[in-house]
């Protein structure tokens, strides 16, 4: 400054503050802005993270569940089983055969057995070898080497089981005697145990047992237990008893052989099939599927599929080796009805039911919603009564969906009292009407908003050339509001598609009812229906873990895809019809 005044030129006006440094206030404002930005980023990251977790948990379980292991078996329609009395098989008789007699189970079991034999698999031998290996492994682990020789020498596994069982019992008796007060008895029992081991052929073990101090009391008991001989012998005996337990039921448990209705229907349709055979893919039991997909190792009790043992798994391994088991896409998931059995469960009627309900919702809520909106927006006088209606429509949008379910149930019971019987219960029509009530406010609000958004100049222009109010609305405002109405409608329908609670109350979740649907594509508006969300609910409640954790996710995946498709449709329609003015 002083230079400037010295130079005599006009002094530069003294700046109150420099532009080159930030004032405290500006710094504070920038800090606030940066904080807000980071908070926003953090919020979005959290949301994205949870979205990713959600999608991953659904996709990682749902996609594999869409594939199913199938056994290719030669299905032989055995006349001997179809008519146990011998002689010809009458088609009418087949139709009358009780499904629970297990005749088809017999067909399936025999066919599976035949297929395995043809593939060179020795069924009983495979099972036996697996169990013998298990017994020998148990013995080896306790230091009882040479178990295999003993089993071979004994002949049948059951005989070997008896030998090992006796030795184990002798050891158990010794342990009891050693803990007792009678020294003589303890000595005798110890020697007897050692002798039993020698008899079986485990000389080293016998020496070990004989070396235990019979007067040792508690120490002797501990020393005997530490050898682990008793447990190993009893385990081996248990394992060796298993092959004798293996029967047809254990064999047929591997595949899903209970689609009896199919077999019977096929036979009724075409009686010539009796006595012939055809290659069909039969689903592997859903529990075994987990073993095949590597979820369960089959080693140890906890790693076994529930209800299966290692003998059966060894057969599965043999079938895989013989290339009899393949993993294929579960097409029937999209056509079959819901079933308790995960092997054949599907979402066919649910898809159709949901589609029908969406149709009903579209028709009802679009017509009534748009009509109500046009009346309220364009024609209704503005008074307290219309204000009251408007407030209540807005309130209706916030009513919990279960309340609409209660309303639907009330309608249902009234109709049943009026003599419609049970026929309306759980139908797509009833479900659709209930969902329409739920969707209506959404559509009314969206429609009114888009009608309001049409510029008033269009209204003036139309009235100015002499259009009547109705012409103004239908020729000009409605077409311009259509994209908004469509978007609102699709969002409302997507919401309705995912709604479970009201449908549970009006009987759309009853699985037995939907089982009546012979073909998923024949269900009309007035037939028992299922819906996607209720089927997801049923899947998620299934007793089998693979259904709970696989098929439920698959169904959710299908539903999500449908919702995405609807939303994309909404966006495309909006893009296409959007006008600027």
């Amino acid at each position, binding site marked *: 400054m002083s230079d400037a005044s010295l130079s005599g030129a006009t002094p530069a006006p003294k700046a109150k503050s420099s532009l080159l440094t930030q004032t405290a206030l500006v710094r504070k404002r920038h800090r606030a802005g940066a904080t807000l930005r980071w908070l926003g980023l953090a919020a979005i990251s959290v949301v994205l993270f949870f979205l990713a977790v959600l999608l991953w948990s659904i996709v990682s379980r749902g996609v594999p569940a869409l594939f199913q292991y199938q056994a290719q078996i030669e299905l032989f329609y055995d006349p001997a089983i179809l008519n146990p009395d011998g002689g010809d098989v009458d088609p009418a008789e087949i139709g009358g055969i009780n499904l629970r007699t297990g005749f088809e189970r017999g067909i399936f079991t025999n066919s599976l057995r035949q297929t395995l034999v043809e593939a060179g698999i020795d069924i009983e031998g495979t099972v036996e070898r697996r169990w013998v290996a298990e017994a020998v492994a148990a013995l080896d682990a306790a230091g009882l080497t040479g178990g295999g020789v003993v089993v071979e020498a004994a002949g049948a596994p059951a005989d070997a089981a008896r030998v090992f069982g006796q030795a184990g019992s002798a050891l158990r008796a010794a342990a009891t005697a050693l803990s007792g007060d009678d020294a003589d008895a303890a000595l005798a029992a110890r020697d007897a145990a050692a002798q039993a081991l020698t008899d079986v052929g485990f000389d080293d073990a016998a020496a070990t047992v004989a070396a235990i101090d019979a007067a040792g009391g508690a120490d002797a008991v501990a020393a005997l237990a530490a050898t682990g001989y008793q447990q190993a012998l009893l385990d081996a005996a248990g394992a060796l008893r298993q092959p004798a337990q293996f029967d047809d039921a254990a064999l047929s448990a591997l595949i899903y052989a209970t689609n009896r209705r199919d077999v019977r229907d096929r036979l009724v349709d075409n009686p010539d099939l009796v006595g012939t055979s055809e290659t069909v893919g039969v689903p592997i039991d859903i529990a075994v599927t987990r073993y095949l997909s590597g979820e369960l190792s089959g080693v140890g009790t906890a790693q076994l599929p529930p209800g299966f043992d290692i003998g059966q798994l060894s057969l599965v391994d043999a079938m895989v080796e013989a290339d009899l088991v393949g993993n294929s896409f579960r097409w029937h998931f999209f056509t079959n009805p819901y079933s308790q059995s995960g092997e054949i469960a599907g979402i066919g009627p649910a898809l159709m039911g949901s589609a029908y309900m969406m149709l009903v919702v579209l028709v009802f809520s679009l017509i009534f919603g748009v009509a109500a909106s046009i009346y309220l927006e364009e024609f209704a006088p503005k008074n307290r009564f219309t204000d009251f209606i408007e407030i209540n429509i807005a309130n209706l949008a916030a009513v919990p969906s279960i309340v609409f379910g209660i309303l639907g149930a009330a309608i249902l019971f009234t109709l049943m009292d009026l003599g419609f019987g049970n026929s309306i219960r759980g139908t797509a029509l009833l479900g659709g009407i209930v969902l329409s009530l739920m969707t209506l406010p959404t559509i009314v609000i969206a429609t009114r908003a888009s009608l309001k958004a049409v510029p008033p*100049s*269009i209204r*003036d*222009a139309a009235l*100015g*050339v*002499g259009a009547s109010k109705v012409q103004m609305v239908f*020729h000009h405002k409605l077409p311009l509001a259509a994209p908004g109405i469509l978007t609102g409608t699709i969002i409302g329908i997507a919401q309705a598609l995912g709604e479970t609670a009201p449908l549970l109350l009006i009987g759309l979740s009853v699985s037995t009812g939907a089982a009546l649907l012979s073909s998923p594509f024949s269900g009309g508006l007035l037939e028992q229906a299922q819906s996607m969300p209720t089927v997801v609910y049923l899947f998620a409640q299934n007793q089998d873990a693979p259904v709970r954790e696989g098929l439920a996710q698959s169904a959710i995946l299908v539903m999500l895809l449908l919702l995405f498709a609807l939303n994309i449709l909404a966006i495309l329609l909006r893009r296409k019809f959007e*006008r600027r003015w």
Partner: protein
Amino acid sequence: MNDMRLTERDVNTKEIKIEARQVQVFYGTTHALKDVDVEIEDKTVTAFIGPSGCGKSTFLRCLNRMNDTIDVCRVQGDILLDGEDIYDKRVDPVQLRAKVGMVFQKPNPFPKSIYDNVAYGPKIHGLARTKVELDEVVESSLRRAALWNEVKDRLDAPGTGLSGGQQQRLCIARAVATSPEVLLMDEPCSALDPIATAQVEELIDELRQSYSVVIVTHSMQQAARVSQKTAFFHLGNLVEFGETSKIFTNPEDPRTESYITGRIG
């Protein structure tokens, strides 16, 4: 143009198209227009001038009952079109608006094709029975609005894609297409640039051959250029009504003089 206007002014034997007597307009409790008496002649351009909020647009909208769409608006007094009271209970405003067309301040073509914009009025009023007739109406209306040569090759193009001046002429064509007898224009040039304004003004002058034109304008120059009769509104009152030349050169009321000379408004 000026010459022509002078000769027109001499002719004073035109019939009265619209006659307003003691018109009062209320918006709720606000008395927006008081005791307006105006006689609008056929084949004449009548301009309404006045400061903002003086009621000139309100009065214009009374002439084709566009005020009906405003709930709180009440109109009293008589407005006679060819001797018939347009506020009579038996009058259908839809029919009235076919006779009394309107052009708005902001060009407001429908978001449809140029053709559909013009054809809409004739269609709903049943003025054309066949496609050929409709084509003729559209062409003649666009010609009247001096737009035909600019758009004849793209009748299917959206009307909203035209320039501002073209849009306003399209709106005029749309109004003309219903064969009205009176054309109301509410500040038709206020959203336009000077060139477009000149085109529209020229057009108004031509339209005068066939219609009675009423124009509301903020621009006194415009009123002077296009109109033969001028009405000056102030604070809801019709202050002065008479020959345009007289209003602008020798006003009777001091308020008119103040407005014209720029002291008020």
